[in-house]
């Protein structure tokens, strides 16, 4: 029939046309296929990134004048002298163009070249092949304001008194003191040299080596005491010399695969103290019955000993499945210290019958750390992470008995039943931590997370052998229409432990013969009722939150903070309660293209409550306690911090201003409550107030040059009863440095020119 043939021809024609169309489309799509040989290169006629007049390098030179000679103002910069300084900063860099045949780059950077906090760095590399780098960094730490000392020999390891020195039973009797005082600068300076390379052995393997050397020199305020009895110390606060050196080597080999990564590393750290001991000529008359020869006695401190640390580490990660990953690390560390001992006493007039049991401590601590983390996403809306961590500090320092000679102020007592026969206790710890968290996403932009963590500590030579800490937490995060998002989290932490043995350290560090002479009720280092808060049972409730709000496109407001409360309910003495709140409000407003401002306000408070019991002799423990001898100290810190800033392009590309202002005030109140047998006069509050203003104006004089005028104002004032109006002889039994709490009013004006290229 004609109809059937025509239908069949029609179908065939349609199919043919379809086939041709598909083939044509297929052929067209071939044009979009990757040309693996050529990769993606821009055509000659293709769009090129627009030419931009922005510069990658600059050199800044100028000068500034500082009006303040306060050590505190120049604490970390060296701006502690009232005179001019050079402004010198530069950042010069070059990187081969993105489409060149070379991937070389280099950079040299210098900051604060005219100050004691100068930094210089350089790096050179071929991207994807290797990188070489070197840095020099200086860090001053100017510490005390107004320090003075009568001692000669400052900067050496022995301080001695003027020939005409008059000893006193207290500082009041040192009649030559004020005439002997000399101003000294207490502070240190670090100079660090750091360099190394990273070498890409292949696209997957690389090697890294870093070497670092640091010198630290200066003076540090250190207390040194003479006298045996706790109620009759005679001490000085003196300038101890600091001359230390650290050398570090860090080597890493890393593999980076598509599914797995591995990194093997070794770190060596060597600390070398060029000063083994520090001694001083005693400026006091000794109170204890003693031959007059003791008047010429000397006190001596051991300084921080040379030490070394080795650490081998292995980190690895592997993607088991698209949404499942495991990562972990293992490291073994060794800390060694074997500095030769100085003698039991530096006073040649005292008799020492029993030598030290060994020439050095032979101190050795092995550390072991293993960590394994497993993360997975069993469902699109559920993610899970769990981890286990083991950390061990194993102290293998040899244990010996030492016939301690107290404070260079007595002949050595070697009878085994003496309290001066002491055994050192090599502290160690094993820690297990287990964590599991799960997050559930619902309604597109919400996530509910719950989690649990468990930590067990097993300590050697501690009042509590085992502590267990449980942490349960829940967190809700939510986002509404991209303009409001936030989260709130609640944590409950509870720590319990095995029996608190307050006498553990006392019993282990004294000889059995001595313990036999001490009534059992008083065989304690500390009051049996006290609980050391890092070991004690505690319950913590903590709430933290964050909220970010974008009411308008250029305006963002943020809130974040937390509140936590620790209750040491099993502790009758010691820290019994701690509370902490911190809250911050942030505002950022980009008013227009050339004007933006920010501001923030933070409020924090910290409250600690601790209890004590006053006894005037240890026999007091043999009788029932007098309730009128308990006392409580509450310390409350309240801090307000406010900041505002403006970034204003007054004339676009020609003149801009930046202004930052920060205000902070901190108040520490110390309140006491006590039984009627005790004095309870109030202690003065501690106060700190800071105003800090920074203003910078930039004026472009040429396309590649601009001038910057800078002004910085800082006002800082502290009230600290421990330092204010305390001269070197204010404290009967402490010959101090007379340094006072820092106050300053500093203006810094600077003018510099930037050359950009």
């Amino acid at each position, binding site marked *: 029939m004609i109809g059937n043939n025509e239908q069949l021809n029609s179908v065939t024609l349609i199919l043919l046309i379809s086939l041709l169309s598909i083939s044509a489309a297929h052929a067209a799509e071939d044009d979009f296929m990757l040309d693996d040989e050529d990769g993606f290169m821009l055509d000659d006629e293709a769009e090129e990134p*627009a030419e931009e007049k922005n510069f990658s390098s600059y050199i800044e030179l100028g000068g500034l004048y500082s009006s303040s000679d306060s050590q505190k103002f120049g604490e970390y910069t060296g701006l502690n002298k009232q005179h001019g300084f050079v402004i010198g900063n530069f950042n010069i860099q070059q990187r081969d163009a993105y489409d060149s045949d070379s991937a070389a780059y280099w950079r040299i950077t210098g900051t604060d070249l005219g100050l004691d906090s100068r930094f210089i760095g350089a790096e050179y590399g071929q991207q994807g092949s290797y990188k070489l780098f070197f840095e020099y960094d200086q860090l001053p730490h100017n510490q005390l304001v107004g320090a003075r000392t009568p001692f000669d020999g400052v900067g050496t390891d022995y301080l001695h008194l003027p020939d005409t020195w008059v000893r006193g039973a207290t500082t009041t009797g040192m009649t030559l003191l004020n005439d002997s005082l000399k101003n000294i600068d207490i502070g240190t300076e670090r100079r660090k040299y750091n360099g190394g390379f990273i070498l890409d052995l292949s696209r997957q393997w690389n090697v890294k080596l870093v070497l670092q050397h640091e010198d630290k020199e200066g003076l540090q305020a250190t207390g040194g005491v003479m006298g045996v009895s*706790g109620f009759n110390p005679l001490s000085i606060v003196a300038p101890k010399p600091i001359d230390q050196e650290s050398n570090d080597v860090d080597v890493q080999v890393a593999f980076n695969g598509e599914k797995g990564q591995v990194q093997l590393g070794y770190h060596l750290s060597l600390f070398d103290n060029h000063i083994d001991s520090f001694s001083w000529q005693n400026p006091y008359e000794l109170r204890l019955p003693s031959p007059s020869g003791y008047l010429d006695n000397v006190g001596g401190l051991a300084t921080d000993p040379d030490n070394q640390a080795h650490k081998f580490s292995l*980190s690895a990660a592997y993607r088991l499945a698209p949404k499942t990953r495991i990562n972990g690390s293992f490291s073994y560390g060794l800390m060694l210290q074997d500095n030769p001992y100085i003698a039991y006493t530096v006073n040649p007039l005292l008799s020492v019958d029993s030598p030290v049991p060994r020439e050095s401590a032979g101190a050795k601590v092995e550390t072991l750390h293993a960590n394994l983390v497993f993360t997975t996403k069993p469902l699109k809306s559920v993610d899970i992470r769990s981890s286990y961590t083991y950390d061990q500090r194993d102290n293998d320092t040899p244990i010996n008995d030492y016939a*301690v000679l107290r404070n260079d102020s007595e002949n050595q007592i070697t009878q085994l039943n003496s309290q001066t026969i002491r055994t050192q206790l090599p502290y160690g710890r094993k820690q297990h931590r287990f964590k599991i968290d799960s997050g559930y996403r619902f309604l597109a932009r919400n996530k509910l997370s719950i989690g649990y963590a468990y930590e067990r500590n097993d300590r050697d030579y501690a009042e509590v052998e085992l502590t267990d800490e449980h942490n349960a937490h829940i967190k809700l995060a939510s986002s509404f229409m991209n303009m409001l998002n936030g989260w709130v989290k609640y944590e409950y932490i509870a720590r319990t432990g095995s029996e608190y043995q307050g006498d553990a350290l006392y019993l282990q560090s004294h000889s059995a013969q001595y313990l036999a002479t001490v009534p059992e009720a008083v065989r304690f*280092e500390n009051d049996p009722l006290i609980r050391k808060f890092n070991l004690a049972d505690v319950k913590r409730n903590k709430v933290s939150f964050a909220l970010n709000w974008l009411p308008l496109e250029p305006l963002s407001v943020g809130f974040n903070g937390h509140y936590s409360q620790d209750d040491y309910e099993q502790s009758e003495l010691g820290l019994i309660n701690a509370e902490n709140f911190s809250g*911050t409000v942030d505002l950022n407003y980009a008013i227009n293209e050339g004007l933006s401002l920010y501001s923030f306000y933070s409020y924090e408070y910290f409250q600690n409550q601790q209890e004590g019991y006053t006894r005037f002799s240890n026999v007091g423990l043999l009788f029932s306690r007098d309730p009128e001898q308990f006392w409580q100290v509450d310390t409350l810190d309240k801090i307000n911090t406010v900041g505002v800033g403006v970034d204003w392009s007054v004339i676009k590309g020609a003149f801009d201003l930046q202004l930052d202002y920060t205000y902070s005030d901190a108040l520490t109140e110390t309140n006491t409550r006590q039984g009627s047998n005790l004095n309870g*006069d109030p202690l003065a509050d501690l106060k700190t107030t800071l105003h800090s203003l920074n203003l910078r104006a930039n004026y472009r004089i040429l396309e590649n040059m601009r001038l910057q005028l800078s002004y910085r104002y800082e006002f800082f004032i502290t009230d600290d009863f421990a330092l204010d109006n305390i001269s070197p002889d204010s404290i009967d039994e402490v010959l101090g440095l007379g340094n006072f709490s820092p106050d300053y009013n500093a203006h810094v004006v600077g003018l510099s020119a930037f050359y950009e290229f």
Partner: protein
Amino acid sequence: MKKKYFLFLSLLLLSFLALADTVKTEPEYAKRGAASCLKCHDELPITLIYQTPHAQQTDPDTPFAQHQCESCHGASPQHIPGVLEGEKKPAPSIVFGLQSNTPIEQQNQQCLNCHQQGLRMHWQGSQHQFADLACASCHKIHVKEDNVLIRQNQADVCFTCHGEQRAQLYRRSRHPIKEAKTICSDCHNPHGSSGEKLLVENTINETCYRCHAEKRGPFLWEHPPASEDCSICHTAHGSTQPALLNNRAPFLCQQCHSGVESFHTNVLYDGSGVSSSGGQSRLLAKSCLNCHSNIHGSNHPSGVRFDR
């Protein structure tokens, strides 16, 4: 008839084969790479990326040596063609930032495809990852230099969320964070770590020893809280008390010490002590450290009370 049916079926089979070959399993990247994007996006700051390591085509591992813009933003054939006036253009497959509709995990995976090793090895399971922080929350790519990689600017990025630590910089006693001498990444690895609090080392103490090796010991006479955890007594960012202490001596010390043989540690040091002999030496100047100066540990044979 049978021949015609056979022809029909053959043609049908060929059609299906052609169609099957046309179905793409590979992402559809722009033929002209970045050139397609630059038609619209040739302004600052986007083009600043050309001055950064991400654009260096000689390095085969960079985005621009592969699919260029789409290496990070994903194959986006829906975004490239023009649209009629009034129509809204579909977004690229991956848009970065917390305000983006692209899931955070998907955004981050783009970065992790290249940056999974080294400091980022422990990202999965870290506090920031589990809190759904995006890489783009802290890092900016279309800039000449990323602020978190500039020492002077890094802390400001962290303070976007960590306002408490910003406030602590203005306290009486602090680390030189404002001066960029110790910056956040000197102590913390925000990408994840094997230790607590995202610290760069396994423990708090090991992190502190990086700069304070003189405290490492081990000492002959150890002070257990100092050997266990520096943060038992100190707070790292800033404190109202000297030497970054949590609380001031003698009260800090009396939270653990109330001596039996050493009576002076159980005494209440109130305001009357400021002017009394005996009280002064415990309240004024360096307080307990007027005598117990080697408080972190002593290597002196007579240093059991840390006063030698």
